[in-house]
């Protein structure tokens, strides 16, 4: 499987170095309201959580994360009105990458059986390449309200799906990390999430970075002292250079400031414990 490539071996590092500049071909564009899905053919596609920097003609390059990865390229999601949506199929696009540290299955060993994915609905595409990364995968998706959740029919039946809405209009009542008062007729998400955290061998998260400290506390409460890489969180911030020189993507962790473009964009969730 092409996702979750180990990035720590010498072989992987030299492979990354060789693949730094590539020409991708825009193969298809498809509106999937409210966003567009584009497919790029590329010799060395990024794995889940890593990215390429694409030149769409603007003054800075844009990071593209994969929502689907296969042997000939990857798909990604862009907002409506994005420069890519005005291009014709077969347009060549200059990209640098794959770059960054993606989700690492190697962090918890290769015999991964139970994987938990947690995403806010808008960030869900970046976890999609992990849907089959383990024999048992559970997915928790949170949105503000029912209308922001993808239709359950879009998810593969092999996923154990937990839907959470902040207003309780569908599934469990969010936010995930909150155990506040619960109105009659709905169930809080927190007990369910605790159960899943206890069940999982590895957790991959994509959401608002401001919530990571609270999620890290939740994981710590359940697992006490999780091993490094047990819970991994994607940080999506602007990364114009991709090589750690511009200082624009610095994020604060308990080990000091780190650059999302080279030290991440996937970090150990426990690095965000305050």
């Amino acid at each position, binding site marked *: 499987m092409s996702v979750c490539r180990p990035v720590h071996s010498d072989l992987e590092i030299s492979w990354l*170095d060789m693949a*730094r*500049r590539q020409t991708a071909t825009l193969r298809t564009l498809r509106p999937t309201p*409210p966003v567009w899905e584009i497919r790029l053919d590329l010799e060395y596609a990024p794995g889940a959580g890593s990215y390429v920097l694409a*030149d769409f003609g*603007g*003054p*800075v*390059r844009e990071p593209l994360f994969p929502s689907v990865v296969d042997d000939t390229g990857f798909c990604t999601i862009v*907002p*409506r*009105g994005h420069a890519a949506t005005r291009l014709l199929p077969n347009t060549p696009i200059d990209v*640098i990458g794959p770059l960054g540290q993606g989700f690492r299955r190697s962090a918890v060993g290769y015999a991964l059986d139970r994987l938990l994915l947690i995403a806010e609905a808008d960030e869900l595409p970046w976890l999609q390449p992990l849907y089959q990364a383990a024999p048992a995968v559970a997915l928790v998706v949170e949105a503000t309200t029912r209308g922001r959740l993808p239709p359950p029919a879009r998810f593969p039946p092999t996923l154990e799906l937990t839907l959470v809405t902040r207003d309780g209009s569908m599934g469990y009542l969010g936010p995930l990390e909150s155990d506040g008062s619960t109105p009659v007729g709905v169930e809080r998400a927190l007990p369910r999430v605790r159960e899943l955290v206890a069940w999982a061998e590895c957790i991959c998260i994509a959401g608002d970075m401001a919530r990571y400290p609270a999620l890290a506390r939740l994981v710590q409460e359940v697992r006490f002292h999780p091993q490094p890489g047990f819970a991994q969180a994607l940080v999506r911030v*602007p990364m*114009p*250079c*991709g*090589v*750690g*020189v*511009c*200082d*624009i*993507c*610095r994020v604060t962790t308990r080990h000091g*400031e780190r650059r999302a473009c080279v030290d991440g964009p996937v970090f150990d969730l426990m690095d965000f414990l305050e």
Partner: protein
Amino acid sequence: MIELAPNHKYGLPIAVPVMPASGTFGYGEAYHDLVDLSLLGAIVTNPVSLRPRRAAHGQRIGVHNDHFVVHTGWPSPGLRRVIREAGPIWERLPVPVIVHLLATRPVEVGRAAAYLSGVRGVCGLELGFTEDISFADARDLLAATAEEGDLPVIVKIPFSRVDDLAPRLAQAGADAITLMSPPRAVLPVVDGEADDQVARFMRGRLYGASLFPLLLNALSRWAGKLGVPVIACGGIASPEDALACLTLGAAVVQIDALLWRVPWLLDSVARALVQSQPQLDTEKDDLSVDEGAMEANL
């Protein structure tokens, strides 16, 4: 060879009149597989302060049409850590290293200059000022840097202070002058998705190709009149742009944040300038005749 510090005891000779601008290239090795470093004249490092500095909070980049503003707060790991981690890299780089110092206080830049004087591979310092610095403060910082260390000192002049500071700092002992730091600007930036966009504004250093005519304006006014070599920096986006700067009297060009989009611009500019050097010498001779005529008319 191009001598960037003809009045300095050691000098600062470089082979090719191209280098990255401070804050765009890290500490030397980040672009090693995208840029042929041996083609460059020198490397200018990210800004370094004596003590560690944290990054600015909040949004750090705003993009609008062909421009972008950046506000990072110039984070720095501190001089000791930079020397510890980047020093071994500088030693083996095929080109000289110019360390960009953040001009904080005279005592700090003086100490930093003294430390850096003994670091192998470091051949010069570039001093960067804030927009609102007074001439007296800038002069004191320059003096402390030059006196405490023994490396040539290049002064990078803020965009809005070129006329005020460039001639006076050249006279005060700068070995070379970089024209210019990016101007401060405000751009509208957009938050959220297309449906619920909220317009906000962001202030920061402005980058984009439209800085180039402003750079040419500054060069046409000051290059050749300061008594020290001038380094051109701002919006240079092609070999032709670089050639225009050299024709107007710049000794060297620096490529700024445009290289994040096209890192190999450094290579192509370097190759083009090396090839066009003889033609350039002729054009400079012609230009000096024109300038003489212009001054006589005035």
